């Protein structure tokens, strides 16, 4: 999962061939999808880690709270990946038993 995608906005000349237009569209969609995914993740991390690490907000973040926030963020990302693996495994199992598409190769 690339958090912010690759923001290589070094597109100097406007694309004109079919091939270039296609590549440019795909790049834009990739960037926006990565940005939207990151935004959702950051919002959730903020919510849960504020809950877990800053029970009583003081005049500033203490060193302990800062450490907790870093650890919480890493843990949340690990937790998200575990959730994603479990969900994809289950969905692909269910859809296989229904004779549907095989999603086992999908990764986010």
């Amino acid at each position, binding site marked *: 999962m690339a958090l912010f995608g690759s923001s290589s906005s070094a597109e100097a000349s406007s694309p004109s061939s079919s091939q270039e237009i296609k590549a440019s569209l795909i790049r834009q969609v990739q960037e926006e999808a990565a940005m939207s995914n990151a935004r959702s*993740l950051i919002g959730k991390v903020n919510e849960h880690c504020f809950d*877990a690490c800053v029970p009583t907000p003081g005049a500033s973040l203490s060193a302990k709270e800062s450490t907790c926030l870093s650890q*919480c963020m890493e843990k*949340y990302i690990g937790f998200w990946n575990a959730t994603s693996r479990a969900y994809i495994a289950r*969905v692909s199992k269910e859809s296989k038993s229904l004779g549907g598409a095989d999603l086992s190769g999908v990764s986010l």
Partner: protein
Amino acid sequence: MDTQTQLDIAKLNDADRKELTQYLANEAQKSNIQQTVHGLADICWKKCITGKISSGRLDQPEEACAQNCVERWMDTNFAVLKHLETLRGQ
């Protein structure tokens, strides 16, 4: 994204147009799955991570809890649908 180049979609040939349509369908599905996972991680975090956070690593019990949470959530989903089906038949 302020300097987005204006793209002339009309210049796309049929093959590229078809490939793009397929690509967009895949991306839409991926995005849907990601949104579901965001929702699930939200729900399951509340149930699984209750104590004080003392490490950035996801430990074994936490990982197992995440997996069980997703599986039981799916079971719940199916159970609700199944019961709804019996209600409909009454």
